[in-house]
């Protein structure tokens, strides 16, 4: 089975992509009427919706900080998003991913402008085909901008994998389950900062560095796309 999803004689992947090629990416903002900001991001078949509410008063009064807004993030998978129906109760994986996604976004939001409030970010995976956290961070960053929250920079995210010994960009589910490593990265290129970094699998030091470069290059393009989508949306609004 690994042979099938590896790199073929032409150097291409199971779906015809080059190793450093992302799946088709789609981004839309302002897709929900109620939310302060929202975005839908697709990486191939992976579809993720993000919505932002706030700054608003916390539901529990003690959950505030005197000098800045608190960020709350929920990463959640729809029951129909996976091959076998997912129980809607939060899994341990969803708990961990909510945490690392929150940390990937927290420092780019200028939360000091809204002390004693809460900013909620809801990330819903509608279809999971690999790279859901990366698409989710990309969507959440867009939704925060769409909500008009002051941000130091936009954040994009992508995962680098290793398949049959080759580093590849934006692994899909088929590749992920057959691959040797999965290294999700999120970054704010305008700040030169990596805001999420994880590795599941085995890599050498050299591979980590090379993989990181691949990811950062792709993230620059994602952020450029985010900016263009936001610009269009502002123009629509201004018209």
């Amino acid at each position: 089975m690994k042979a099938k999803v590896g790199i073929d004689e032409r150097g291409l992947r199971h779906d015809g992509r080059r190793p450093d090629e992302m799946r088709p990416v789609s981004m839309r903002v302002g897709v929900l009427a109620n939310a302060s900001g929202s975005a839908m991001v697709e990486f191939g078949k992976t579809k993720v919706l993000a919505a932002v509410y706030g700054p608003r008063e916390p539901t529990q009064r003690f959950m505030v900080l005197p000098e800045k807004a608190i960020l709350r993030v929920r990463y959640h998978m729809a029951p129909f998003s996976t091959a076998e129906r997912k129980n809607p109760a939060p899994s341990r994986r969803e708990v961990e991913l909510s945490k690392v996604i929150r940390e990937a976004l927290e420092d780019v939001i200028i939360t000091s402008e809204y002390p004693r409030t809460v900013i909620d970010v809801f990330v819903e995976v509608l279809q999971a085909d690999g790279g859901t956290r990366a698409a989710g961070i990309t969507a959440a960053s867009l939704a925060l901008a769409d909500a008009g929250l002051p941000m130091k920079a936009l954040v994009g995210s992508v995962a680098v994998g290793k398949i049959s010994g080759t580093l590849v960009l934006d692994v899909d589910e088929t590749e992920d389950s057959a691959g040797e490593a999965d290294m999700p990265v999120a970054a704010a290129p305008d700040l030169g900062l990596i805001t999420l970094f994880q590795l599941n699998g085995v890599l050498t030091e050299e591979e980590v560095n090379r993989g990181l470069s691949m990811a950062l290059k792709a993230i620059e393009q994602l952020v450029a796309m985010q900016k263009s989508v936001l610009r269009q949306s502002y123009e629509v609004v201004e018209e």
Partner: protein
Amino acid sequence: MSVTPFKLPVVPALKRQSYLNLYKRGVREDGRSIRAPRQLEIKVGVLEKAEGSALVRLGNTQVLAGVKVEATSPFKDTPNQGVLVVHAENVPLASPMFEPGPPDENAIELARVIDRSLREVRAVDLEALVLRPGEKVWNVWVDVYVLDHDGNLFDASMLATMAALLSTELPDFEELETGEVVVKRGTKGRRLKVDHSVVTVTTAKVGNYIIVDPNFEEEVISDYRLVLSFDENLRIVGAQKTGSGGMRAEELQEAIKVSKEASQIYFKALEQVRGGGK
């Protein structure tokens, strides 16, 4: 415990009055008649990996329904029937009032009203869901996911449920020697057998008016809502008064007539799904 809602937004008296003034002239803020539902759009097959799916927009309300099937053991008292389960979640991105967590009373009521309406009229042929009599059947999960809440979740969710079921294709499967059933995800075997179309029509009592398909603000200022379920023969296959205001017997009679009429728009939309699906 069920608790009086204490966090609903307040609709200013002036706004309420402007709604009523419009109703007097038979119309709504968006120009439609008090008897007409909002702009309706149904897209099926919006998810490639689910066995069935549909996205419904009813005005600004958006509901996504996804269907997943799994091989399971039948219930003891119905060994030769598959299982249909409807589950609804008020995902917190849909409204400032929704909070993360297990379904609350509103989501549970929503799912149960849909479930009952389908069940009573045998909308889905459960006998056609048997893989090995008495031992293995399909469990069909319908997950209703409210994405944007601008009122009338019942009608939008029922339409999304029906459209997702109509678009559902059962995967192939394999029986192992051990008797276990392995589902071949991604394959398309045959269509789910949906024998009846069911819709709900929700009316709300606001002031002295009975209006069809209330938006969220109209729900807030209404005395009660009445959800009536119909099959394609216009039999009443379910009903639920929701909200704490009292209803007069003659209001029920009027609501039934009004709802029967409005149901035609919903049935027409489902017919298009059924037609376009094959």
